[in-house]
């Protein structure tokens, strides 16, 4: 009985139902819903946010504000307090928020260099530090010896 009623209703409003389905398809396409489901299933929060920041003009993995590299450090290394960060691209901001802390003490022990520029190498004496991570000689995670 209910089935018959439903079929009758669909037949009477077939055009409206088609529009409804079409709009849902547009919403799916605009939001890349299936791709999102796939990405959420196969990658974690840090991988997704890092990848998406690569597409933003003021950021990248180890470029501009370098959100990706900071997320990578946060995810893969242990440190006390939030490391000190120097961005050699002086026009760009440093996204400290990535570490999820507020009113924090900056670490004296750990240092992150972003967009390292060899022409300004006088600023950092590498002999004082142990290199924990080096990304293409451009972004470094250092520990004071």
């Amino acid at each position, binding site marked *: 009985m209910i089935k018959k009623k439903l079929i009758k209703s669909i037949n009477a*409003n077939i055009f*409206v*139902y088609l*529009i*409804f389905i079409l*709009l*849902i398809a*547009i*919403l*799916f396409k*605009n*939001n*890349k*819903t299936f*791709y*999102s*489901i796939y*990405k*959420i*299933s196969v990658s*974690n*929060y840090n991988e*997704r*946010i890092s990848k*998406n*920041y690569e597409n*933003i003009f*003021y950021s990248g993995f180890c470029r501009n504000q370098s959100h990706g590299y900071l997320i990578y450090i946060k995810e893969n290394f242990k440190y006390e307090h939030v490391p000190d960060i120097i961005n050699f691209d002086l026009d760009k*901001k440093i*996204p400290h*928020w990535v570490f*999820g*802390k*507020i*009113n924090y003490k900056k670490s004296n022990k750990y240092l992150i260099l972003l967009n390292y520029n060899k022409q300004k190498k006088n600023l950092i004496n590498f002999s004082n530090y142990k290199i924990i991570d080096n990304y293409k000689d451009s972004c470094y995670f250092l520990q004071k010896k």
Partner: protein
Amino acid sequence: MIELINIISQLLIFILIFSIGNFSGLKKNYLVENYSNLYENYSYNIIIQLNLILFLSFLNINLETIIYVYLIFIFFLLIYNFHFLLLKENYLNHHIYFLFFICLVIFLDISFNLTLSWDTEKFWYQKTLNFYNGYTIDNLTNTNRSYNPHFGDLVWALFWKFSLIAEEYSGRLFYGFFYVISISLLISNLKTKVLYKFIFVLLIIIATYDYRILFSGNKEILIFSILCLLLHSLNKFNFNKVKDTNKEIIFFILAANLLLWSKQVGFVYLISLLIPLVLFFKINKNKKFIIIIFSILFYLIKLFVYKFYNFDLNLKSCCYNDFTIQGIISKISFDRFLLILSYLAFYLFQNFIFIIGLIILMLGIKNKKFLLKNLYLYLMIFLNFSFIITIYILTDADLDTMLRTGIERLVFMFMPVFIILIVNYINYFDKRLIKLSK
């Protein structure tokens, strides 16, 4: 996979928690027959629960304590409405399926995109972290731009903490839920079949959806959603659909309070609602007086909280320095005015809701009956445009840069006024068609 399940669980929690209080007096038969009451109930719950969270934060208590008190409140609501919550019609109806489905699509997009806007990274997210890390309202003086209201970030932090997903975006999922509820509520004013309403909701979402503006942590989404609720309320007053005026006025005032705490600019949007309310609405003068007095009272409470916690009260941001008469006069020029208008036109014509709204705005002038009934919307649109032009004409910063970075979001915030104008015009047009066919 677990994250997907957690996202769905978060959505179910929202649906459950915001349907718990039966504030609009739903009855079993209403649930099935009356579409608008169901969404009204959700929005009333949201308004009351968010006000509670906001007022608790004023007491300088940390987020965990706020959550405990909030859960006790939810528990009492649960006991009080237990018989109502057991009704399967409450959850097993096509409105809820639709709500669930649309919210899920939006939740998935938020969970995938994740990036924060420039403003959020710099100003808003610090406030969220402040609450999430156990600090109270008192510590907000140590964050950037303490004059920015903390309400949106408090809610973000609360639903981040009170979630199965341990990541920050779980707090932003609430914005998605609120967005869908507010649009559905506004569209519920349409006098048409449920399926057509669903189609309209989908159209509005497709037209307005932009992750960057809505869900990257900006607070424009809150202004947009709260304006939807307030306009729904005004529309009910306008068409004499209010059953319990006192109750509606209380919800209006509470929603107005949230508007004040969403963003500094919320105050201006509230004024643009109150002026038409005073001038055009046939409500008892005493009740109008109560609305005005309470709006002022809530604004004074805001000032008191700012003063008490030493938040910065001056809007000494990048862009406004010179407010002397000479300075203001020197800034007003035809060239600047023209530049603002060109940007305004550019962004208005990028969205089909504005295009249709502007056409209806002009067509409506010809219909005296429609014009008289919707004069308050015309005044609101005029006030909002004037406000945007004034904001930009008075700036001391580079006008072109300011327009490029800000006008899109400002224009977006008053889109609900155009949506309700379209809804009312369709209702008016529909009535005429029915009369002609008779």
